[in-house]
């Protein structure tokens, strides 16, 4: 019996190659797309699974309240980790870590930048690092110990057999390799790590870490398996106050299971995070699968009349309805599995580009039980969903009417269902297109906003400017370096600053001025620059003057931005000459600059104060402006010779500021690209379905068309007649899609302070696109039917 079904199925597929191809290809594309999304989801939800202690690991966050608003930071005091391990029962281990550091590692002539962390030795066992070489238990117990990952060890030494060898760290200290660990996987919080150095080194060089009031490093803890988490939470919350009365921060724990996906905080409470994106894309995956299944149903039922005879003959021969339903379900499942096989191929081909797009390393890995079982389930579910409707529809045919050659009554229910399915598909497609357009324009709108500076022809050089606690060569020799750069003729200006463009890392609420409400704390961002900065960045002075360029001291004079000036006086120009107090020092506003965009490209400007730092004590970044129209290749080569002269040990690294700007939009651009990809797929699959449905309708109305033609209807008249109905379906889809798309995009845009306004054409254009595509799809069939010889079609009756 099964063999017979199978045979009929294969021969049916083979005989109707176009139809089978449409049907299977549609489903395969849908499955491939869903498979890729699910691979990504898997990667996201298994983040940090590499750490086998995951369930007992926590990071310490701190709630800090200003002006009734609670902010949550990952920064903690340097003494916290040791103290809580000693004093709070249930905390088994703890470690401090610095923020991600980028340092120069040198062996002989070879210098390589590596990212890494300063950590306490407990880090090794808490995150169960796997040692390839060296002793796990005694690692990092010396101040001059360093652990390297396999890949950086191979890059520096060309081997991992390096325990006991010496590495020069940051061009300063000699460290001895204590161990080589396996690379930590990318889908963990520490995937960037290439080296680890004992935290005490960092602690010694940063005196301020010893204060309970300063929050500057990260703290991780591992709890006992049987620990009472609630009791620990309670003790922890007031812990810092037991050490220092003035400190305001209250530590809380965030489970390792939440580090990646649920690390947003609102008013001190955990509130979502990346998990929302994961959910969104999971839903999209299911929607695309659904569209593909709908397609399958539509094409299968539409073609059912051709198989009505087979169904009837089988019934007369003794097949029951149930047997027939079973037959068609099996057939659908069989096709679904062909689609799955095809989808595996598509996925394998598409995955490398997708990986590049999302900067991940997803692998098909068919041997993983989760993967092949999921594929089996997807095949089965798609087959069942896609086959159910056609199976019941076909199974319920009345054999007498069919065998007698009578036309099936236009099954009103079936036609309605089919139309409903098409409307669903197109509504989803139109929604995706609208979302694509709005996301694209939101990004474009923000990219084109007034930046307050000129980002072109500008590079940032970060690495070699300062070393810990001391001014590096670049800072010491800045004046000479600048003059040499200017003398090359390629450079227009150069300046040092504390942060690279679009970032300001420091802020303080210690400032006050005459018109300030003393009860209200205002957070002011702070930047330290050399006097050339305003000119180099292309910032605009609104009032007052720039810093003195001739070397005169400006130590008590500051520049402020427009937003800050408005806090001081209604008219920003009147802020010039006003006094700003900070602790004991009095600062005079020398000038007001136009707002520049920093930290949040979608946000409005925050108040900013700029200090003159001619001695380069607080600077870490060199900004160079090339002359307009200069050839970057040669300009960079010239700059490289000058910089390398003063910093021979450090490989030359630079970033174009406009590239950094583009990177700020990475998240949004990625979502935009993905949504547009899905929009394209959705509409493609929907069109396959529409194509099939149009063919079906044309076939079904073949007699009507014949009669109309005999009576004198024109080809265009008939093509219009056939297309019109489908266009209505698309219009109904738009009516459904518009409010849904508007609502979701309106909600999405609320996240951004600087946002594009939604306008009517963002809906009209997708509707037109959908209509146009539908017309093209349908008219092919309609015209084919309309030009056919009517005599032929009438004879088929």
């Amino acid at each position: 019996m099964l063999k017979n079904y199978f045979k009929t199925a294969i021969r049916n597929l083979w005989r109707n190659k176009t139809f089978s191809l449409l049907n299977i290809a549609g489903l395969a594309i849908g499955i491939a797309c869903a498979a890729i999304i699910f691979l990504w989801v898997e990667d996201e939800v298994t983040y940090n699974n590499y750490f086998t202690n995951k369930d007992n690991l926590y990071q310490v966050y701190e709630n800090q309240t200003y002006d009734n608003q609670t902010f949550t930071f990952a920064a903690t005091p340097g003494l916290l980790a040791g103290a809580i391990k000693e004093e709070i029962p249930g905390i088994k281990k703890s470690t401090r870590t610095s923020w991600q550091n980028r340092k120069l590692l040198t062996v002989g002539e070879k210098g390589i930048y590596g990212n890494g962390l300063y950590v306490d030795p407990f880090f090794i066992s808490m995150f169960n690092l796997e040692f390839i070489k060296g002793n796990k238990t005694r690692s990092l117990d010396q101040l001059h110990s360093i652990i390297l990952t396999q890949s950086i060890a191979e890059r520096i030494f060309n081997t991992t057999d390096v325990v006991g060898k010496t590495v020069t760290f940051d061009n300063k200290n000699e460290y001895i390799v204590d161990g080589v660990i396996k690379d930590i996987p990318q889908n963990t919080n520490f995937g960037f790590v290439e080296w680890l150095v004992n935290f005490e080194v960092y602690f010694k060089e940063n005196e301020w870490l010893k204060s309970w009031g300063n929050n500057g490093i990260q703290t991780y803890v591992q709890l006992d398996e049987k620990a009472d988490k609630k009791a620990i939470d309670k003790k922890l919350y007031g812990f810092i106050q037991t050490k220092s009365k003035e400190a305001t921060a209250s530590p809380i724990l965030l489970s390792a299971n939440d580090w990646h996906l649920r690390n947003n905080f609102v008013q001190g409470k955990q509130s979502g995070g990346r998990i929302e994106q994961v959910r969104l894309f999971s839903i999209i995956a299911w929607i695309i699968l659904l569209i593909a299944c709908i397609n399958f149903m539509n094409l299968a039922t539409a073609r059912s009349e051709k198989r009505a005879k087979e169904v009837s003959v089988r019934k007369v021969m003794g097949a029951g309805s149930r047997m027939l339903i079973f037959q068609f379900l099996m057939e659908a499942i069989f096709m679904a599995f062909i689609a799955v096989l095809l989808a595996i191929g598509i996925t394998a081909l598409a995955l490398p580009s997708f990986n590049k797009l999302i900067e991940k390393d997803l692998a098909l890995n068919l041997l993983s039980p989760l993967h092949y079982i999921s594929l089996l389930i997807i095949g089965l579910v798609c087959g069942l969903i896609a086959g159910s409707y056609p199976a019941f529809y076909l199974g319920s045919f009345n054999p007498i009417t069919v065998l007698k050659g009578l036309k099936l009554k236009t099954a009103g229910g079936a036609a309605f269902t089919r139309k409903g399915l098409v409307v669903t598909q197109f509504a989803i497609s139109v929604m995706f297109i609208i979302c694509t357009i709005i996301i694209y324009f939101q990004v474009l709108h923000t990219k084109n906003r007034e930046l307050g500076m000129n980002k072109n022809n500008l590079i940032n050089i970060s690495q070699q400017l300062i070393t810990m606690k001391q001014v590096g060569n670049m800072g010491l020799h800045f004046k000479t370096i600048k003059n040499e750069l200017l003398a090359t003729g390629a450079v227009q200006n150069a300046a040092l600053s504390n942060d690279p463009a679009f970032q300001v890392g420091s802020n303080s609420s210690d400032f006050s001025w005459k018109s300030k409400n003393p009860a209200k704390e205002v957070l002011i961002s702070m930047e330290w620059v050399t006097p050339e900065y305003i000119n180099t960045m292309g910032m605009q002075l609104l009032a007052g003057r720039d810093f003195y360029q001739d070397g005169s001291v400006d130590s008590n004079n500051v520049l402020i931005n427009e937003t800050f000036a408005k806090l001081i006086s209604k008219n920003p120009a009147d802020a010039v000459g006003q006094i700003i107090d900070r602790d004991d020092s009095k600062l005079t506003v020398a000038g007001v600059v136009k707002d520049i965009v920093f930290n949040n490209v979608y946000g409005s400007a925050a108040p900013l104060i700029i200090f003159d730092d001619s001695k380069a004590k607080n600077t870490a970044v060199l900004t160079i402006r090339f002359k307009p129209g200069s050839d970057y290749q040669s300009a960079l080569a010239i700059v490289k010779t000058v910089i390398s002269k003063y910093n021979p040990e450090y490989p030359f690294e630079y970033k174009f500021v406009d590239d950094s700007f583009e990177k700020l939009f990475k998240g949004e651009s990625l979502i935009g690209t993905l949504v547009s990809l899905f929009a394209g797929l959705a509409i493609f699959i929907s069109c396959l379905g529409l194509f099939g449905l149009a063919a079906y309708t044309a076939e079904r109305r073949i007699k009507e068309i014949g009669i109309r033609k005999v009576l004198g209807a024109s080809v265009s008249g008939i093509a219009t007649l056939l297309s019109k109905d489908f266009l209505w379906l698309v219009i109904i889809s738009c009516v459904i899609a518009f409010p849904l798309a508007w609502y979701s995009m309106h909600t999405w845009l609320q996240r951004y302070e600087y946002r594009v306004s939604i306008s009517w054409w963002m809906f009209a254009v997708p509707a037109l696109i959908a209509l146009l595509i539908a017309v093209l799809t349908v008219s092919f069939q309609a015209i084919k039917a309309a030009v056919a010889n009517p005599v032929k079609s009438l004879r088929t009756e």
Partner: protein
Amino acid sequence: MIKIKDLEKIYRTEEIETIALNKLSMEVKEGEFVAVMGPSGCGKSTLLNILGLLDDSDGGSFVFNGIEVANFNERKRAEMRKHNIGFVFQSFNLIDELTVYENVELPLIYTGVKTADRKAKVEAVLDKMKIMHRRNHYPQQLSGGQQQRVAVARAVVNNPKLILADEPTGNLDSSNGNEVMELLTDLNEQGTTIIMVTHSEHDARFSHRIIRMLDGQTVTENILV
């Protein structure tokens, strides 16, 4: 074998009622070859559908092989049908995707005959119908007469007690038509009961008895043998 009394079939739409069978009574004995004739719309096909257990009646009694089947539901009818009745249609109704062999095999599959037995039975009947050499061809590759021979083979492969033929020669030329009629006569001589609907007086003459119908009732019966 078949006893029908006061059988009624009424087709209803919202506006009109059409009486297809009007208290029709008839009897067919085992081994008989009966032809049913009459103008279009007289109820021949309705009668054949009910006799073939493809359709149900709206009143009256239908005893098949001593069992009252008038009130059988669809599942029971299907069960009765597949073991006892073979069909031959005007338009052959072979499944295009299956070969000659597979088409003939189909009823055996649905009655649950084992594969090995199926092969023997199908080959025997194909041999008898002289289409063994065409066993691996598809219906479209055959002439009309050959297709109808396949259809007859499929109807008899299960050894049904009754064969219902609905204008079996309607789509055939006269020589092919005669061949099919001779096949049916042979089957009847071997003991199968045959009821045939036809417009052709020539074909009707192959039967033992002609039942003439008008407006859902039998009007005359001619006994030929």
